[in-house]
């Protein structure tokens, strides 16, 4: 009998974020967490879709357990990424959590309508990021 040791499982995170500071701080927060994560990053929606469809240089990259998605990005924004994912049979079941600076209720309800699993307002400080990471784990393992 094989018992899967869930604790040891590395969680594959795919982060879509254009702000280099946010990328670095979030990566640090992942590292500080008590779980093991493997985080890949794309810096806009177009690059994100290429990665997820494993096109070109993204061939053989790990399939994500969860997508952490920013909304306001150049070329293709977070809403457009969500709409693309919904249309794609192979990708539509990957859970998406939005992490955005926007506190607008309109944005929150738009994101919900596009089937995102969670909406987090970008926190100030590391403690807020640890909380977000805890919630991501809950979504993946829930």
């Amino acid at each position, binding site marked *: 009998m094989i018992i899967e040791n869930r604790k040891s499982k590395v969680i594959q995170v795919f982060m879509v974020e254009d*702000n280099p*500071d*946010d990328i670095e*701080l979030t990566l*640090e927060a992942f590292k*500080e967490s008590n779980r093991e994560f493997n985080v890949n990053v794309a810096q806009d929606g177009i690059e994100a879709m290429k990665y997820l469809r494993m096109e070109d240089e993204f061939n053989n990259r790990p399939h994500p357990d969860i997508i952490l998605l920013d909304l306001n990005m150049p070329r293709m924004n977070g809403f457009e990424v969500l709409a693309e994912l919904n249309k794609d049979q192979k990708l539509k079941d990957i859970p998406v959590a939005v992490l955005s*600076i926007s506190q607008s209720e309109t944005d929150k309800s738009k994101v919900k309508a596009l089937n995102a699993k969670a909406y987090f307002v*970008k926190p*100030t*400080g*590391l*403690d807020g*990021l640890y909380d977000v990471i805890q919630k991501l784990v809950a979504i993946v393992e829930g």
Partner: protein
Amino acid sequence: MRILLIENDLGDVQTISGFLYENWEINCELLSCSSVSSANEILGREKIDVILVDLSTPSKSDSGTLLDIRDKFPSLPFVALTFFDENEFDLASCGIDTRGLLYKHKLNSKMLMRALHDAIEHKDLITQLQIQKIELERSNKDLEKFSYAVSHDLREPLRSISGFIQLLSKKYHGSLDAKADHYIERLNAAAKNMQEMITSVLEYSRISTHAEPFKSVDCNEILDHALGNLEVAINETGAKITHDPLPMVYADFLQLLRVFQNLIANSIKFSSKDKNTPIIHIGFSKKGEFYEFYVKDNGIGIDSVYFERIFTIFQRLHKESEFPGYGVGLAMCKRIIERHGGTIHIESAPGKGAIFYFTIPVNGNSQ
């Protein structure tokens, strides 16, 4: 000056042109017609500076046409002529502002010319004021949008600053010297401070940029919400809070809630020094067109020289260690009350407690 005379009595037309010729000015020109509807036609093709209308000329059915003229040419001044002390046809009652009412039997040339000039000057002034008002409203709106955008966009780099300072502190605390640790601590505190201030500016500018339309709201319900939100502070200080039954008003529920909550929170804060028990009463009275609410406390009070200053954003009278806060609450109250067409002020003296008064129009404000 081109004058359009509306007069159906030919004799009066002659008298009036006589008066005009007596004090004739260069560039002065008189056009006349016998009905309001033909005046309307003339105005369509001629440039007119002032209308001189005999109040006995328009019939009741003409009042609509006179209003049309006013709507089509809002900057056109009117001067009215009448035979009677009591007008048969009241221009003011149909919304037309007559600058100067002249009695035909007392009329002379000088009076007529002065009335015409006054009317034009008055209208010019009004037009100028209106232009300035529109300009002022526009620049106020711009400023609000600007402060909203600035404070919104400032949060982004500030988040990075706070994040990296925390990272620095977490990873290197103790491995640098004591001075470095102290600097990091100060940086952290300053970043937090700035974060709070930016959030406050955002909320302050949101009062008008993210405002809800006014509805009929029950102030008793608003007060219940406010007291609910302040439950922790009330329990901690043992504050005794009483209130009159409050009226219904026409307001933005969340904003008015904010006013009550900020004022009561302030009262609790400044009345609980040295384990004093805050005693607070919320009441109101009707004063003409307004409800005047008040929040009265037994706190430390303030000197009258500060009465204006406390309503300005980021103005504080006490050290942070004495009474925490950023100096935003009362500024917020003032702005909300002004948006509702009311005013706010304080009555107080050091050691004698404070009473904050604010008014809300009984019948609502058109915003």
